[in-house]
């Protein structure tokens, strides 16, 4: 692909055959779902029609947007806090060899602690409140971001630092102009991972420690054996994550890292 010199990144050809393939896949899944639902009671496996009705209901009465909004808000707060602490901590641990060596075992330990355990701690400490969900998201996302940023600082090219030295560039400019662009891809992939995890664990936290949000609604629907509503909430979550991933993260990544040769091969 670099044979013709300049490569234009971000150009995606509209592939009709691909769209057709995806369409066939969706129809096949829907058909299997519908056929299986015929032979089962609706509280075990509701059919697509029932789920569609449940979905229309929660959209119409405003339930969807309220709960989706509150969950998204909690995830965002936890995520932003994790990014704000994880980025400087990761840079610090990468820049300071002794501190890095000292704290190295902490991260794997933090990563092993299940989010459900954080959720239980959060309920003990914060009770039924926003802070519970935010805490769980934070504790899950932060180690991921630190690990990635840390790795990023270790990949800073010493030759570029030498280049800046020859140009008599002050240290703070070296941080901004060399360290930051090097770390950014690592931070981004860490943040993406953290956001995905954070979103998932927020539901766990909400099912046990909240009185609003998608997780709470899911548990409520399950308690009432409204399986059609469980499906409806799940569907909205999937759609929302896909929208954020493909509508925001992917284009942002493609733009930010257009200088990377392999970023365009997808």
């Amino acid at each position, binding site marked *: 692909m670099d044979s013709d010199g300049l*490569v234009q990144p971000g150009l995606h050809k509209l592939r009709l055959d691909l769209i057709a393939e995806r369409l066939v896949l969706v129809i096949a899944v829907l058909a299997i779902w519908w056929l299986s639902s015929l032979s089962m009671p609706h509280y075990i496996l509701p059919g697509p029609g029932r789920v569609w009705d449940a979905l229309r209901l929660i959209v119409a009465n405003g339930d969807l947007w309220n709960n989706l909004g509150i969950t998204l808000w909690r995830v965002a707060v936890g995520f932003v806090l994790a990014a704000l602490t994880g980025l400087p901590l990761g840079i610090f641990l990468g820049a300071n060899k002794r501190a890095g060596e000292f704290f190295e075992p902490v991260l794997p330990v933090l990563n092993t602690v299940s989010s459900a355990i954080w959720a239980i701690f959060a309920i003990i400490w914060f009770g039924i409140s926003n802070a519970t969900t935010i805490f769980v998201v934070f504790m899950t996302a932060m180690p991921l971001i630190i690990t990635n940023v840390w790795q990023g600082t270790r990949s800073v090219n010493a*030759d*570029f630092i030498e280049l800046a030295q*020859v*140009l008599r*560039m002050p240290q703070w*400019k070296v941080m901004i102009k*060399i360290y930051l662009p090097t770390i950014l891809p690592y931070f981004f992939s860490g943040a993406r991972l953290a956001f995905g995890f954070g979103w998932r664990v927020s539901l766990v936290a909400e099912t046990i420690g909240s009185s609003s949000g998608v997780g709470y609604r899911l548990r409520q629907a399950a308690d009432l054996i409204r399986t059609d509503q469980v499906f409806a909430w799940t569907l909205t979550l999937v759609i929302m994550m896909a929208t954020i991933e493909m509508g925001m993260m992917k284009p942002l990544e493609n733009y930010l890292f257009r*200088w990377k040769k392999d970023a365009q091969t997808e």
Partner: protein
Amino acid sequence: MMNSTVLTQCSPGEADQAVPAIRLLDIDKTFANGNQTIEVLKNVNLRVAPETIVALIGTSGSGKSTLLNIVSGIVKPDRGQVCICGAASEAFNDWCSVGYMFQDDRLLPWRTAIRNVEFALETGSMPKSERTRRAGETLQLVELDGFKDAFPYQLSGGMRSRVALARSLVTEPRILLMDEPFSRLDAQTRALMHEELLRIHRLKRMTVVFVTHDVAEAALLADEVAVMSPRPGTIKEIVKIMQPRPRDVTQPEVTEYMQRLRALI
């Protein structure tokens, strides 16, 4: 106090001689390697006249790159004095700036060609528009203005080398230091870069000091070749090349110089 003694050391001494672009006085440098020390440079003296091209040549370990790094200020000598345009090199000055070109191009992969050239101007507080204008002009000088918005991965080795050259020229240095600048290019591209360098030298008249291990490169480009010998690194001999440029390896005079240089190292 300290400064005044430094300045007297740096002044040329003989009134009839032009102030040298670079003056090295009794440079010593040792590196520690485990518990043993290696004398990389011992008692090195060198005078580089303004607007000339000087090659530093020698086997590996003769300290030629270290010497270049001492001139650029990346490495501090243990003893001796570096004078740049008649002033102590620590007194980094605007009227006689130094450009540096590395062995590899060292382009920042996240920056386009023009933004890579601008990088050299970002140490001070020059406004962005002025940086862009100068970087554009310098890319034009190296005949690469058509590729100013390309990222390094989109450029060929020769093009990348030109961007690196532009980056070291954009500050309009009076002295250009180059550490085996074209050694990683193929022979054909290297020959093109030689022409390019000489063309820019005719235009800008900067002083050039370059390190090479290639006798042909030294004989083709330099006015003077400083031959270095290792352990401890010293300048063994200075060969003046009288043949006018442009030169060609097929010229008998050039071949003779090459043989002489090869015999010396």
